[in-house]
């Protein structure tokens, strides 16, 4: 997975990049299954390897396929990235170790979901119970995000007649005066 990620960073052919990111998502989904997150894995597979790839390919088709060589030396981004990573390493050192049943996340809140969730909601898949009921408002928000994105894409890419498009560009010049 790491190799795929670095490959994405280095590859300049965008088709290659998209392909790699699809592979990456697939690997991610596999890993998620291993981690018992079946719902997430299913979604990641559908979204990461499916929708995203299709979307990216569509976009590349509309915009062209290769990336030009970067002009700047990447020192500043590198610095930012290293600081971010360093901060995270520092932070995670303070967290409970992997698969520690005594970790707070397994002690607080989650047991209630697992114990009473299926009883109170009648839904054995606790993920669904939490998603749709306990944290149903989050999911409403999520749906709204999808809605927003959908409407947004319509607003941005609505079909317009060529003449209007010309006007648009002209307006762009106008505004800069």
């Amino acid at each position, binding site marked *: 997975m790491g190799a795929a990620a670095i490959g994405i960073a280095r590859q300049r052919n965008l088709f290659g990049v998209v392909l790699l990111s699809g592979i990456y998502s697939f690997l991610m989904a596999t890993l998620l299954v291993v981690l018992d997150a079946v719902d997430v894995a299913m979604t990641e597979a559908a979204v990461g390897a499916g929708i995203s790839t299709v979307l990216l390919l569509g976009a590349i088709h509309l915009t062209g396929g290769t990336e030009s060589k970067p002009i700047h030396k990447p020192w500043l981004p590198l610095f930012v990235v290293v600081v971010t990573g360093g901060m995270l390493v520092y932070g995670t050192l303070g967290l409970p170790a992997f698969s520690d049943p005594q970790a707070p996340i397994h002690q607080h809140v989650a047991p209630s979901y697992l114990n009473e969730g299926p009883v109170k*909601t009648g839904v054995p898949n606790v993920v669904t119970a939490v998603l749709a009921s306990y944290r149903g408002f989050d999911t409403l928000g999520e749906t709204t995000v999808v809605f927003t994105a*959908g409407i947004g894409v319509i607003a941005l890419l609505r079909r317009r007649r*060529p003449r209007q498009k010309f006007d648009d560009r002209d307006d762009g010049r106008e505004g800069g005066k």
Partner: protein
Amino acid sequence: MRLDVILRVLAKLLIPFAVMFASYVQFHGDFGPGGGFQAGVIIAAAVIFYGLIYGLPSAREVVPDVLVEAMIAIGVLVYAGVGIAGLLLGGNYLDYFVLDHDPVHGQHRGIFWVEAGVAITVSAVMLKIFYVFAGRRRDAGGEGS
């Protein structure tokens, strides 16, 4: 051309299965992995598949733009409406317990409608994005720019 025919036939056969699979994912979400979002994606994928094979215009005929846009909105309305129903029946917002005399039934009912709302919006949005992106290419070509 022959390949085309095979594809068309395949598509005709596959699409009902896809829709069935989607509804399985939708309703089985209570017991196994899956739910509204995944179901929505699959439904959208079925139509997109249809569009890829029969061409965008025929897909647009089957599922017209206006309907898709309306569905985008309706999904959210269904979801938020469940919440309002909770309010009207004397509970808090998104309170499913009050949707039926039996709280557990109420929960079931609530989750069902909520997931339906998600599926409607997600499938419609995915479809719409496909329409828009695919349609864009044609327009861009038509303008000769």
